[in-house]
């Protein structure tokens, strides 16, 4: 059976928080909830998304007014970044609107990720927000994003872009400046991918997740149901095949409890500061609902 950790509210220390996990686990929902929670505590909070703010807008819903929803677009981000390096936006705009150069720039490795990370850094430096929650892409890709500033610093050396990469890394990626929240589900495939993600976070960035969120956790079935259906299969021959089929289903439900326990074990193994389960919900939960669950820190 699931061992639920003692309830304690989570706390985040660094101003910039990255949220990641396998696709479809509820990253945006958790990111929106963290931003909402910060704003409810009186902090100036931003939820940052890239390219497309549709899912963040949907989750924030009516709670949107509390949180600044920042949707970064690549074209703009690139002009801003190049403009900062060159000292004038107008040159940057001319560069990226030149038809041949535009194609060329589109081929520079990882410039897209770099420009987005630079904008996160600019938001942090602007001091407009106390908490910036960044909704990163899915697992493997998210790591690429976080590694890119330092990779630029390494291969571009002391050039302006290399220096900028170093600054971005020091200000919004380095340990102590940012925190990573990993969202997972109590499902075998998802937990496995989460494990790989946490290993890579530690190996490649020296980072431990501040919080592991195990999303959509079902209430375990009450003890005794298994014994009752086993007895039914043995005592009532006409019910045996139905009882055995039900046992398969109960076993699958029990597996979910095992997977939940496994996810908690994983969170402890990677020394995540907090691990919080969120309940399965029949509808798509809102940011404020999820924020409340996160603070409760235990299964409802």
């Amino acid at each position, binding site marked *: 059976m699931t061992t639920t950790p003692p309830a304690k509210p989570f706390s985040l220390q660094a101003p910039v928080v990255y949220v990641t996990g*396998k*696709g*479809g686990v509820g990253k945006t929902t958790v990111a929106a909830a963290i931003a909402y929670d910060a704003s409810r505590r009186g902090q100036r909070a931003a939820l940052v998304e890239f390219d*497309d703010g549709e*899912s963040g807008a*949907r989750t924030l819903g009516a709670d949107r007014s509390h949180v600044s929803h920042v949707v970064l677009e690549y074209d703009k981000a690139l002009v801003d970044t190049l403009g900062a*390096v*060159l000292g004038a936006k107008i*040159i940057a705009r001319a560069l990226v609107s*030149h038809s*041949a150069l535009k*194609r*060329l720039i*589109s*081929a*520079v*490795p*990882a410039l897209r990720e770099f420009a987005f990370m630079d904008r996160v850094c600019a938001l942090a430096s602007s001091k407009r927000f106390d908490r910036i929650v960044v909704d990163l*892409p*899915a697992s493997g890709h998210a790591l690429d*994003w976080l590694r*890119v500033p330092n*990779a*630029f610093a*390494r*291969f*571009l*050396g002391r*050039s*302006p*872009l*290399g220096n900028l990469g170093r600054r971005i890394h020091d200000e919004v990626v380095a340990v102590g400046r940012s925190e990573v929240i990993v969202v997972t589900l109590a*499902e*075998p*495939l998802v937990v*496995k*991918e989460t494990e790989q993600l946490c290993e890579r976070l530690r190996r490649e960035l020296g980072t431990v997740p501040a919080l592991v969120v195990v999303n959509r956790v079902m*209430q375990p079935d*009450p*003890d*005794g*149901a298994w*014994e*009752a*259906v086993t*007895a*039914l299969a043995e*005592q*009532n021959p006409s*019910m045996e095949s*139905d009882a055995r*089929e*039900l046992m398969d*289903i109960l076993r*699958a439900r029990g*597996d*979910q409890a095992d*997977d939940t326990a496994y996810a908690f074990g994983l969170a402890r193994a990677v020394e995540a500061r907090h691990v919080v389960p969120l309940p399965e919900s*029949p509808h*798509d939960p809102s940011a404020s609902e999820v924020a409340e669950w996160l603070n409760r820190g235990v299964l409802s």
Partner: protein
Amino acid sequence: MSPIDLGMEGGGPMSRPPPSAMGTRLTVCVGGGGVGKTTTSAALALSLARRQRRTLVITVDPARRLADALGTEVGRHAQPVMLDGASEYLFARMPDSRMSLDDFVLWLFEDPVQRKRVMNNPAYRELGDSLAGVHELITIGLLQTEIDSGHWDEVILDTAPSRHALAFLTYPTRLLGLLEAKALGWLAALASNADPSQAEQKPKTGLFEWGRSKAEAIMGKIVGLEGLRNLSALFADMVSVRERWAGLARRTDNLLRNPSTRYLIIGAPTGGAMADASFLVRHLSQHGLQPSAIVLNRAESEPPACEQRVFDSITNTPPNVPSEQRDALERTLRAMQDEHRLRGEAAYRAIEGLQAIAPRGTSVIRLPFVHRSEPSAIVLALADAWQETGSDL
């Protein structure tokens, strides 16, 4: 001649089926994250293999656990899949992306000196994995290799779980545009002229030359001398194999627009997955393509009949067990009924929503919620469900 083919080092091709007489049909599965796209693709592949179609399913960057479930492994080559009814007809190819990128470079550059230079280039080493378009490139390379092999009746491509997975549709065209851009040749030429500050002193003729030297100076200012040298060396190497790129891009473009190629959108009854599905329908149509079907996965229909029968049985003739055990079972069954009802309602709303967005001629197919946790059991159950839908899929 195919990209990412390692005939020499790999034993893969030996175990494959003989060439297909009828040509290969491609099915591209797209969908947002968390809809069960990989298991659904595998199940579709299995149901085709059961009809003795020689089938290959390609999944880039899979979870290792899925490979285990299919009785196969993550690796460079097509591996036979060990599942009931799959015998000799079902294969899977599950490469990881770094591996495939290196293989792609091996294919692209025939000259060993050039290969080595590219792989040692700091720009490639540091950023190779996160290079813009790399995932698209790998997908295309793998796909073309397998189609060219002529081994398959069916190839199922399980794309990355993202709204932007369709980026690979336009990648061949974008690639061609890039390779024909004057600027690429110009940057490549910088490899031999590594000091951009000198560019200003060269004799200049005309506006283009003037603009060019300015641009060189600006690029040098952004990435620095060393960076410019590495980047331009990388581009120079890429330009030298322009024809290989271009040939690949053209063939892939033909393949993706071939009328026999099918697109399936996979969804699930959640708000996010529904929004993704509708985004993907619009996105496909912007490219002049239409999905063959929209598949609603995890659509609860009739709850398993055993649940109600067990419920009736323990109510009418209680089994001889302590009453708290009987209560526990009863409470569990009630909780399951509630879950079925909620999931059933969500599935109903989702089907209505999907029918509303499905273009004329696109069918909406529902696959059941599978009450199992093991991936292999889910794949088997979904394959049965595919067959029961009776559609030509």
